[in-house]
C-alpha cells in the first residue's frame, strides 16, 4: 500500500441475503492487504448502504449480493451515491451476477464485477489500480 493513510472501503451486503461468507472473506482479505474495511453486516437497504458510504467517506464501495435482486437494488445505491455527491466513488460488485445482467450493471455505473473464483489478490490489485496506486 502506498502512502501512510490507508484507503477506506465499504463492504456491503445488499438486500434480503444472509449469505455473507464471501463478503467476510473479502473484508478480511482486504484488511490483510492494508485497507481499512468498514463492514455493514447483512440485510442492508440501498439507503443504509448509501448513508454508510456518505458518513464514512469511503474511497470505494464493494457490494456483495447473491440473492438475484441486483438488477433492482444496485442501480438504487448508485443513484443515491450520485445524489449525495459521491459519483466518483467506484462501485464493485461481487457474488452471483449472471453474464446476461452484466452489461446492464455496467451501464448503471458498476465499475467492475467479480464472481466466484476471483482471488483476494486480484480484487486488491484491481482496487489499488482503480484508486490510482498500481505500482
Amino acid at each position, binding site marked *: *500500500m502506498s502512502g501512510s*493513510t*490507508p484507503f*477506506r472501503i465499504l463492504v456491503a451486503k445488499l438486500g434480503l441475503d444472509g449469505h455473507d461468507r464471501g463478503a467476510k472473506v473479502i*473484508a*478480511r482479505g*482486504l*484488511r*490483510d*492487504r*492494508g*485497507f*481499512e*474495511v*468498514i*463492514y*455493514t*453486516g447483512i440485510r*442492508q437497504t440501498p*439507503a*443504509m448502504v448509501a*448513508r*454508510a458510504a*456518505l*458518513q*464514512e*467517506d469511503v474511497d470505494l464501495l464493494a457490494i456483495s449480493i447473491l440473492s438475484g435482486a441486483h438488477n433492482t437494488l444496485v442501480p438504487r445505491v448508485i443513484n443515491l451515491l450520485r*445524489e*449525495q*455527491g*459521491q*459519483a466518483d466513488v467506484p462501485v464493485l460488485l461481487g457474488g452471483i451476477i449472471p453474464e446476461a445482467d452484466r452489461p446492464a450493471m455496467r451501464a448503471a455505473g458498476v465499475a467492475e464485477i467479480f464472481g466466484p473464483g476471483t482471488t483476494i489478490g486480484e480484487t486488491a490489485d484491481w482496487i489499488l489500480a482503480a484508486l490510482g496506486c498500481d505500482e
Partner: protein
Amino acid sequence: MTAPAGPMSPEHLAERLRDGDMRSLARALTWVERRGNGFETLLGVLLPHAGRAQLVGISGPPGAGKSTLIGRLVEQYGAVQPVAVLSVDPTSVVSGGALLGDRIRMTDVSLADNVFVRSVATRGTAGGLSLACWDLALVLDAAGYDPILIETVGAGQGETEVRYLADTTVQVEAPGLGDHVQALKAGMLEVSDIVVVNKADRPDSAQTAARIRQTLALGMETGLAPHAFHGQANDTERGWVQPILLTDALAGTGIDELQDRIAEHRDWLCASGVRGDAERRRAARLLNLLVDQGWQARRRAMLEAAGWEDAVEAVAVREREPHAAARRLLQRVFGD
C-alpha cells in the same frame, strides 16, 4: 443535498458542515484524520464553535455489548437531538489495515438525519483510542452534535486513554467474563464515571454487579478510587458516586436510566466546577500527545547518532545490561 465539487477552502467547508451538510462533515473528518494540507486551519476555524458537546466515552471488554448499547442510546438521543458516534476498532499491527465492524449494530439508526456514525481505526495509537479522535470529536462538536459517543476498542485493563478525552466515561461489563479477582485489578472500572452491567437477562448479572459494587466500595475504604486521578481530590469527595446500572441492550431495558445518569453527570461536572479541571487536564493530555508524536519522529535520528545500532547489538548478545545501555544512549543524546 447538493454536493461540494472539488477542493474547498477550510472556511467554506466549515460553513457547510455547520449548516448540516453531511457530505462536507464526512470530508472534513477525513481531511482532519489524514492530516491533509491545511487541516490545522480547518480545526482553527471550527474551534470557536466547539466545546458545547458532552463527550461520552464508552469502554468495555470485547463482546460486552458496547455497540448494541450505543445503538440503543443513539436511537433515543436521535429522537430529540443530533447525536454522533465515533467508533474505534484496532488497526492490524501486521498489515496496517483494519476491519471496522461496529457500524453493524447502528445501520438502522444511522438513517436518521440527525445521527452521524463514523468508524475510526487506531492507526498505531495505543490506549484504546486513535489520536485522531481528539480532532474528530472537535469537528463533530462544531457541527452541532451533542452528545458525541466515543466507543473505544474492546478494552478494560490497559485502555484508559478515553478518560482524558471524554467528559463522561461509561464502562460496560458483562456477566461471565472472569472471576472476582478480575474486578480487583486496575483498569477502566476505577476511573469510569458510570458502570453498566449489560446482558442483564442473564442470571449471573446481579452477581457481577454485586462484585463490582464490592470492589468499588473497597476503593472508598482505602481512600483511593472511585475515580481518583493521581494527586487530585477524587470525585466521590466532590459528590459523584459511580452508579452501577443493569442494562439489556438487545431488549432495550435500562437505557432510559443510563441516559439519565449521563445527563446527571454532565450537570454535576458543571455545578461542581470539576469541568474546568477536566478541560485543563484534557488540554495538557492532548498537548502532551502531540508533542510526544513530534518528539518521537525526531528522537530516532538523535538515537541513531548516539550509537543505537551498537547498543542493540550489545544488549542482544548480553554483553551489556539493558538499563545501563539505555542510560548511556540518553547521556550521549543530551550531552550530560
